[in-house]
């Protein structure tokens, strides 16, 4: 019988208390009648089925009733219902979106099997520094041979190739890999096979793997693409495989992969740093152990090659942790902001539910007195909380879905992951849990208390002001809301100032009215200097003749587009100290470049067509170059030369003879607006050496124009096609766009954080309004009495508004303190704006006060409308 009693616990309490005894009696009689174990077993089976189905049905009946009741009761309080749903939706939406993206970029394992064992290896500039520099092929080979911590180690480098054949010529992001890389990542091609070690040897015929996206777009997903020959930069390659859809390596944009095929000559020098290195740790080997071993390996190589490997260390970094410090800080800030919004949303919900519970004390007490079971009343309240939380949660998820595309732009490009994070079940569960806990916790707890032994008290007290303790709790919640919103306001204010500051940085050139595009010349074909110069001259000649074009020029790399190309400099009459690391960025140019980009020529002249290989080797340098080597002197006619890292001999490469300075120009932010740039050296394009430095062949065309950019671009494409029909045109965009890419992440970041701050402020305003409205309503008697005793309208207004402002002052004070203390963590994102910027702090405080005032006005006005006679008569 006891077992049957337990079974009956499946039934709702209200039903059980009515009928459990009877059901038990019936069961007892039937058991007595049951003959034999078989009949008894049948009886039990029936009983279990009966109670389970009956329980489910009764629960459902009750739920239906409660929903109807809750619907009616919420219908009488639509303001409450709407506010709760919107507040919950904002909290859930913000948190879900921010959590999705943070999880996607920082937490979730990369999309490779056992990704936690994947690491990247870097050379360190000095033995103990954490710097990350590429490896030379020779060092890579020795690391690979001597280290034991890794299951496999491979090298890669990113680049781009001109793909010709099968449609328009196209410039594609590509990567070259050693044969180890794809197996060690744990991925297999979707079609075909990966590279064999034989294909990764010097002189092996070209093979390539396509990305899924390229296969779909260019070859319509045709499996027959295997074995097809394609031309990359005029060299034939055979397609041997297609990688699966989610495979991104080393970056998201990589479209095809080629074997590295290192030449024997590549191993001759150890200061030629260009390989990136990826490895898989052996199972059980920790990152620290691998790091310790690599330090030893590096030290041993230093002993072996004391000159080239002087002070070269090694760093092991988890592939997952390659995210830049700034991106990481940004995402954490975003996540913090979202948590702040959720916190505010939850305090608001708590406050709303507390107020409602207090308002309904009388109703609940009456119903309890009329015999409604405590369990049924609680169940109804729970249904209400759950209903509102569910509606809010669903709306929140929709909000998050709508916000994800915006937030997804914060995902750094340089990661081997997809761009858009998916909303997944864990995140949904997280958001749902947050709302539920809040709604249930604050919806039910006060009700539980007022339903307890003090139900009668509630009846007596009527709906008059609740206990002062509860009002203090609500005030505390409002103060917390204001605090958080002040912190968020200050953070976004600081980021806005940082954005303004970055946008006002002078890049050193005039980005307006300049169209740019890239024609990367494929190498064996354009090896002869005459061929390159011929192409440039032919294109430029026609472009300059176009209507609306004032000037045009070719350069190796436009500023910002490429920050590298850094060389060591040895200047005449300047004692080079080895620790100086004196370097400059180097570019080849056609004449007219400075005019096109609006870079002022301070002294001397531009490079000229007459500066040929046969003539004097000349250079134009930037002002900071002069400042460094010949401060206060006339640099024209001075000489310098390019050195090599490690202080090796000069003149290894034919063109590296002394250069004579013929001109000085203004400095340019080569590395982008927010970074320090090396001084610049510009060399005439006709003085580029014939057989080396192919990487520096002028490829970026800049055109200064007025008029319709669309027509201009069409004309430019026609001109390039006439010069070489197989030459692809890539990266068509204005110089303004290029500069804007510099601030794009900041603009997104500001927009997102400002949205969070706006939501926070709005919620805080709602919170203050809710609290004061409730206080006024519950104190209307007191207010009536005061009025009757002669208080003027102004006094009443003052009473309410002052209450609001007192809370605001407390919240603002705390918020300022918190923001002041937390400022340091934002510093990395602020581009030099002080994290304790007084103007921003003052503005945030002001805005918070205005919000508080705004939230107080309506309740204050209502308080002033209180008719003393009416309220006193009510009781």
């Amino acid at each position, binding site marked *: 019988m006891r077992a049957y009693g337990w079974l009956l616990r499946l039934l709702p309490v209200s*039903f059980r208390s009515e*009928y459990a005894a*009877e*059901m038990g009696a*019936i069961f007892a*009689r039937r058991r007595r009648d049951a003959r034999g174990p078989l009949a008894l077993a049948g009886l039990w089976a029936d009983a279990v089925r*009966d109670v389970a189905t*009956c329980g489910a049905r*009764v629960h459902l009946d009750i739920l239906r009733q409660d929903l109807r009741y809750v619907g009616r009761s919420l219908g009488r309080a639509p303001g409450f219902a709407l506010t709760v749903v919107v507040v919950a939706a904002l909290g859930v939406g913000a948190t879900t979106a921010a959590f999705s993206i943070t999880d996607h970029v920082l937490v979730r394992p990369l999309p490779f099997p056992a990704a936690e064992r994947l690491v990247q290896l870097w050379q360190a500039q000095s033995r103990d520094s954490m710097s990350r520099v590429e490896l030379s092929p020779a060092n890579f080979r020795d690391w690979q041979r001597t280290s034991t911590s890794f299951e496999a180690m491979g090298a890669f480098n990113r680049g781009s190739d001109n793909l010709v054949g099968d449609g328009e010529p196209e410039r594609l992001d590509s990567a070259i890999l050693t044969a180890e890389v794809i197996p060690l990542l744990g991925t297999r091609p979707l079609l075909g096979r990966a590279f064999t070690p034989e294909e990764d040897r010097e002189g092996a015929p070209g093979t390539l793997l396509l990305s899924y996206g390229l296969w779909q777009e260019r070859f319509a997903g045709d499996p027959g693409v295997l074995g097809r020959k394609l031309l990359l930069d005029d060299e034939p390659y055979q397609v041997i495989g297609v990688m699966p859809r989610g495979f991104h390596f080393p970056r998201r944009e990589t479209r095809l992969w080629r074997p590295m095929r290192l030449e024997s000559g590549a191993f001759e020098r150890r200061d030629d740093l260009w390989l990136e290195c990826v490895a898989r740790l052996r199972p059980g080997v920790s990152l620290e152990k691998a790091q310790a071993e690599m330090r030893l390996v590096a030290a041993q190589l230093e002993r072996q090659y004391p000159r080239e490997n002087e002070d070269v260390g090694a760093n092991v970094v988890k592939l997952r942790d390659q995210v830049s410090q700034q991106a990481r800080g940004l995402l954490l800030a975003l996540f913090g902001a979202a948590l702040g919004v959720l916190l505010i949303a939850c305090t608001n919900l708590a406050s709303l539910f507390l107020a409602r519970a207090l308002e309904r004390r009388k109703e609940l007490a009456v119903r309890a007195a009329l015999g409604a079971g405590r369990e049924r009343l609680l169940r109804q309240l729970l249904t209400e909380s759950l209903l509102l939380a569910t509606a809010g949660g669903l709306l929140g998820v929709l909000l998050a879905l709508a916000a994800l595309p915006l937030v997804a732009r914060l995902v750094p490009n340089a990661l081997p992951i997809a761009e858009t994070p998916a909303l997944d079940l864990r995140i949904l569960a997280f958001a749902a849990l947050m709302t539920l806990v809040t709604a249930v916790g604050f919806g039910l707890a006060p009700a539980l208390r007022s339903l307890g032994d003090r139900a009668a008290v509630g009846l007596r007290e009527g709906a008059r002001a609740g206990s002062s303790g509860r009002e203090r709790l609500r005030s505390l919640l409002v103060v917390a809301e204001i605090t958080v919103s002040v912190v968020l306001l200050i953070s976004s204010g600081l980021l806005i100032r940082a954005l303004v500051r970055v946008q006002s940085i002078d890049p050193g050139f005039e980005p307006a009215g300049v169209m740019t595009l890239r024609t990367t010349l494929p190498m064996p074909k354009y090896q002869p200097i005459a061929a390159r110069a011929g192409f440039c001259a032919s294109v430029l000649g026609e472009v300059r003749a176009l209507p609306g074009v004032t000037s045009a020029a070719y350069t190796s790399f436009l500023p910002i587009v490429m920050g590298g190309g850094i060389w060591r400099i040895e200047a005449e009459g300047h004692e080079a100290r080895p620790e100086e690391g004196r370097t400059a960025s180097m570019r080849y140019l056609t004449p007219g470049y400075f005019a096109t980009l609006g870079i002022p020529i301070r002294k001397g002249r531009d490079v000229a067509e007459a500066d040929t290989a046969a003539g004097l080797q000349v250079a134009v340098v930037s002002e900071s170059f002069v400042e460094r080597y010949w401060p206060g002197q006339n640099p024209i006619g001075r000489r310098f030369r390019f050195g090599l890292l490690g202080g090796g001999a000069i003149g290894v490469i034919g063109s590296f003879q002394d250069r004579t300075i013929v001109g000085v120009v203004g400095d340019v932010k080569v590395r982008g607006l927010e970074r320090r740039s090396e001084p610049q050296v510009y060399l005439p394009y006709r003085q580029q050496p014939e057989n080396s430095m192919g990487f520096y062949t002028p490829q970026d065309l800049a055109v200064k124009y007025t008029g319709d950019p669309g027509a201009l671009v069409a004309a430019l494409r026609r001109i390039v096609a006439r010069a070489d029909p197989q030459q692809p045109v890539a990266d068509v965009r204005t110089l303004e766009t290029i500069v804007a890419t510099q601030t794009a992440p900041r603009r997104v970041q500001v927009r997102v954080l400002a949205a969070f701050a706006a939501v926070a402020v709005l919620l805080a305003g709602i919170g203050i309004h809710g609290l004061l409205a409730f206080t006024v309503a519950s104190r209307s008697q007191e207010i009536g009495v005061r009025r009757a005793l002669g208080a003027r309208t102004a006094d009443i207004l003052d009473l309410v508004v002052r209450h609001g402002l007192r809370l605001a002052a407390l919240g603002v004070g705390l918020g300022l303190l918190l923001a002041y203390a937390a400022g340091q963590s934002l510093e990395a994102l602020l581009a030099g704006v002080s994290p304790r910027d007084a103007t921003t702090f003052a503005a945030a405080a002001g805005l918070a006060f205005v919000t508080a005032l705004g939230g107080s006005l309506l309740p204050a006005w209502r308080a002033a409308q209180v008719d003393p006679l009416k309220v006193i008569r009510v009781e």
Partner: protein
Amino acid sequence: MAEPRAEIEALLPLPLATFHILLALADDDRHGYAILQEVARRTAGELKLSAGTLYRSIQRMLEDGLIVELRERPAPEEDDERRRYYRITPLGSAVARAEAARLSALVRMARAVGLAPGRA
């Protein structure tokens, strides 16, 4: 006996268990177990209501006003302390009658097309 037509219509068709409980209470007040026995007797053991179905039906019938729980108990010698007794209400009778009429109309229709025994 003037139960509003609409109120009765809203309850039709009756769940099978409800109809049988009304039939069982038609001639006498009974407690739960007695209802089960009466239903089993009338259907010759064909329909054996389970305890859960019985009391869930009773709860709904009470809410709908088809039956009432008796305050006064039967004569002491017939009474069983633990038992609750139920009595059919005028509304209950009206609803049972309406359901019976609905069912016999159905049977007539079936008979008309030769799907039920008896004359059309």
